[in-house]
């Protein structure tokens, strides 16, 4: 898995690619919580367009990020979910808990 960060209008987009599994979810968690809790970024976008797979440890990190963003009064926004990632969100019944958009344009306009 790879993570790259982009800054737009004082917000941060984290571009993720590859598989988010037990091996890689700690890196995603660190990047996500760093933006939310340390940098206090008001909006953090996760671009999941190139994520082929996410496991329950990845989902747990997203939930942790969501809770942290609520505590900070910031927003965590996901977009570009693949079929596989959508399935996991549905199985976890989390698709209505997160802010999810189809693509970057919609996400940035939200």
């Amino acid at each position, binding site marked *: 898995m790879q993570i790259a960060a982009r800054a737009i209008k004082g917000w941060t987009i984290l571009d993720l690619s590859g598989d988010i599994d037990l091996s890689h979810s700690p890196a995603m968690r660190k990047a996500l919580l760093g933006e939310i809790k340390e940098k206090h970024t008001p909006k953090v976008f996760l671009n999941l367009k190139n994520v082929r797979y996410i*496991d329950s440890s990845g989902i747990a990190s997203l939930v942790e990020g969501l809770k942290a963003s609520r505590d900070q009064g910031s927003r965590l926004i996901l977009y570009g979910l693949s079929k596989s990632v959508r399935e996991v969100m549905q199985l976890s019944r989390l698709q209505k808990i997160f802010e999810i958009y189809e693509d970057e344009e919609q996400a940035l306009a939200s």
Partner: protein
Amino acid sequence: MESNPQALGLVRAAIERATEVLHFHEEESRAIVRSVDEALANVIRHAYRGKSGLPIEVTCRHLHRTQDGACASGIEIVLRDSGVRADPAKMKGRSLEEVRPGGLGLHFMRQSMDEVEFSRKKGKNQLRLVKYLAPAAPATPPEGE
């Protein structure tokens, strides 16, 4: 395989290939791969408490059964580890109504697989996962017949 999280990608690829060979639909294939991955992650995290380099035996075979006169085909994946004895009381999953990290892996397995069986044999934890192929839809007769 060894209890190394970096090995999970390789096992996922192998299981995905096996499900393709057995003609599982894409969605079912993803569900099987997810179940095996979650099961292995549980072994690494809980049975081996995060220690790497410990053995996990993964076997996979084509399964046949006859039920109500019809033949069904499927895949059986068995995982064996020599880690801490699995506690059945902790294998019930959790309510999804509560939004909190963790505890989803078992839920994914039970949602996706036809059979999920835990046992302890000869000092080893054993997890057996089975998924049967959905019966093929009856062929539609050509128009005019």
